[in-house]
């Protein structure tokens, strides 16, 4: 039936023409449909891919902000697998690598970032710092000079450039660079130390002294500054002062060596509680508070009923300017051992740091109530009463403090 109808149609030229036009129209329609559909699909795929990229990047930055570098790295790498043409992502990734001191990876990531945006000051700085840490002084200098050309007030770039110039024995240039860095950031121990070294290497011993002194003032436990100062004194003939500094250097170096030994020991024996405890205490002495926090936390994991670990952890937090975790640590310790006056006294200090004077008063009162014979509890309480404007109570506790320190020890 169909065949016979077709024969009928095929025999009529007008019908054939019309059919041909319809066929053409169908073809065009089908072609366009396929084209539009496939374009639509590819557009949707592109959008979906971009959405995935955005979300990995968002998570990566979020995790970096929260200090979770390993997970941040994972997210940023996933983002880059999807879209690799964004300069900022390469640099965020390099910042995460830097946290792990993966300097070669930092160089690679910043090189890519700079290919996409050559005047990216922070990527130039990161690259220069990584090259410096890889011992590539000349290449580091070139990169850091570029950063400083773009941003002459970039103190970190100036500091690292100065250090690279010292390594290249360009002491005059280093002095000039580090002087600029020290003016921009007078609180950088390392800048003052290297400025001292630049002067020392030029034979400017007297000029080197105030720089080393400034470095020591900012970080008294940094051994190299004492060595530099001692050397400068000895060179100008101030033998006694030089020897004092050298002794100080030796003691600090000894601590550093002990620190190194304990670090290795605790790595080899991660459950050696005695070594961990010593390492935590030594870290406090050397003002390495981040390590002290980490180590005290490990001690608490292994020995959760030892109050001294909590006390150490809370003090380390406070030295880092974090009174809130310090308070939380102490509150936990107080639950475990409610009759330790020192815990209340330290808690009072945490509240002072948080600006919560009424709670500070309560805590110091508790410390005084538990151990009224300890003079400095009264002193702390007097100070917070004074701060709260209660002069009468402040005077009472100042008097208690004075009378206790006048008493001969029992």
């Amino acid at each position, binding site marked *: 039936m169909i065949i016979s109808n077709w024969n009928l149609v095929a025999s009529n030229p007008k019908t054939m023409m019309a059919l041909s036009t319809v066929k053409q129209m169908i073809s065009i329609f089908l072609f366009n449909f396929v084209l539009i559909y496939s374009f639509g699909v590819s557009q949707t795929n592109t959008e979906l891919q971009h959405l995935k990229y955005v*979300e990995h990047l*968002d998570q990566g930055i979020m995790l970096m902000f929260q200090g979770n570098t390993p997970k941040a790295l994972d997210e940023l790498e996933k983002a880059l697998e999807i879209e690799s043409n964004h300069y*900022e992502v390469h640099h965020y990734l390099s910042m995460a690598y830097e946290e792990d001191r993966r300097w070669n990876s930092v160089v690679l990531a910043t090189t890519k970032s700079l290919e996409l945006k050559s005047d990216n000051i922070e990527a130039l700085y990161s690259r220069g710092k990584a090259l410096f840490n890889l011992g590539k002084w000349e290449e580091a200098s070139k990169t850091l000079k570029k950063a400083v050309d773009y*941003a002459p007030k970039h103190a*970190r770039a100036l500091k690292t450039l100065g250090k690279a110039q010292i390594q290249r024995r360009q002491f005059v240039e280093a002095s000039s660079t580090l002087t600029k860095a020290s*003016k921009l950031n007078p609180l950088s121990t390392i800048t003052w130390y290297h400025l001292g070294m630049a002067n020392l290497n030029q034979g400017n011993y007297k000029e080197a002294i105030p720089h080393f002194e400034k470095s020591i003032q900012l970080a008294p436990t940094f051994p190299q500054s004492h060595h530099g100062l001692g050397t400068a004194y000895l060179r100008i003939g101030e033998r006694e002062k030089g020897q004092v500094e050298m002794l100080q250097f030796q003691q600090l170096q000894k601590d550093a060596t002990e620190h190194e030994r304990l670090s290795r020991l605790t790595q080899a024996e991660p459950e050696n509680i005695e070594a961990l405890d010593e390492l935590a205490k030594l870290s406090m002495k050397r003002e390495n508070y981040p390590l002290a926090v980490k180590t005290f936390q490990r001690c608490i994991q292994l020995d959760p009923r030892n109050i001294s670990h909590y006390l150490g952890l809370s003090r380390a937090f406070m030295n880092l300017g974090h009174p809130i975790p310090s308070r939380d640590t102490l509150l936990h310790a107080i639950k475990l051992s409610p009759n330790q006056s020192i815990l209340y006294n330290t808690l009072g200090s945490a509240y002072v740091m*948080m600006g919560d004077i009424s709670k500070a008063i309560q805590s110091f009162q508790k410390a005084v109530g538990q151990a009224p014979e300890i003079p400095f509890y009264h002193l702390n309480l007097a100070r917070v009463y004074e701060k709260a404007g209660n002069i009468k109570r402040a005077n009472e506790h100042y008097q208690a403090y004075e009378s206790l320190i006048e008493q001969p020890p029992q």
Partner: protein
Amino acid sequence: MKKPIICFPLLVSLLAATNAFSASQNMIRISAGWFTMGSDNRATDQKPSHRVYLNTFEIGKYEVTNQEYYEFWKATGTHAPENFSTVHGVGLWPDRALEYPLHPVVGVSWYDATAYTKWAGGRLPTEAEWEKAAAGPTDRLWPWGNALKAYANVWNGSDGYDDMVAPVGHYPKGKSYYGAMDMAGNVWEWTADWYSDVYYTYTSNKNPKGPEIGSWRVIRGGSWIDNINRCSTTFRLQLYPISRVSFVGFRLAQSVDSVE
């Protein structure tokens, strides 16, 4: 630019019905004067604390909301915020403008934020203006004072918005001395300034405008992803200005013309 996929008239009428947070009605005037910027006890880039004089200025009482930003996006057809399909309380644009009209707009770059402020007749606050509006004349550690209280949408805040952004003005007890809301937590806020970690050592003490050059812009205030320490009035952070992330928004500022 992604085309709007929801019904405009419906959205517009719904948004118009919730105009309680319109920018023009909610600018706070902060009189000219001195305040202390930075802190000597906290992170290095906040040092040294120093006295700064600012002319009179106005600042948004609230972070710019999805609803407000939607009006801008509709009017200009540009600067669409980024989409975050998996971030709770954010979602896709412009649908989220309907779903969360009073949430702060996020996923906007510094350039998007600047374009919005120009369109709205203002500008982004400088870092100094932001800090004065947050810390007030008595150097508050947090906008509400120095006591540690959960008056902000922060990480682990146990406030009903533990893992998501909250509507603006949801924490009235957390308002600053001048009455600005959410200056701690909820979302980080773009400021006008370039970031430099040592800027406070060479800054001008009168109407400082930040370094002349940089790669990063300063963001302030912390957000729902941060612990409360990072939401203090002096805490500084930096981000590439092209970054569009789910926890950074902004608020409006305006100069006030007067002889001072």
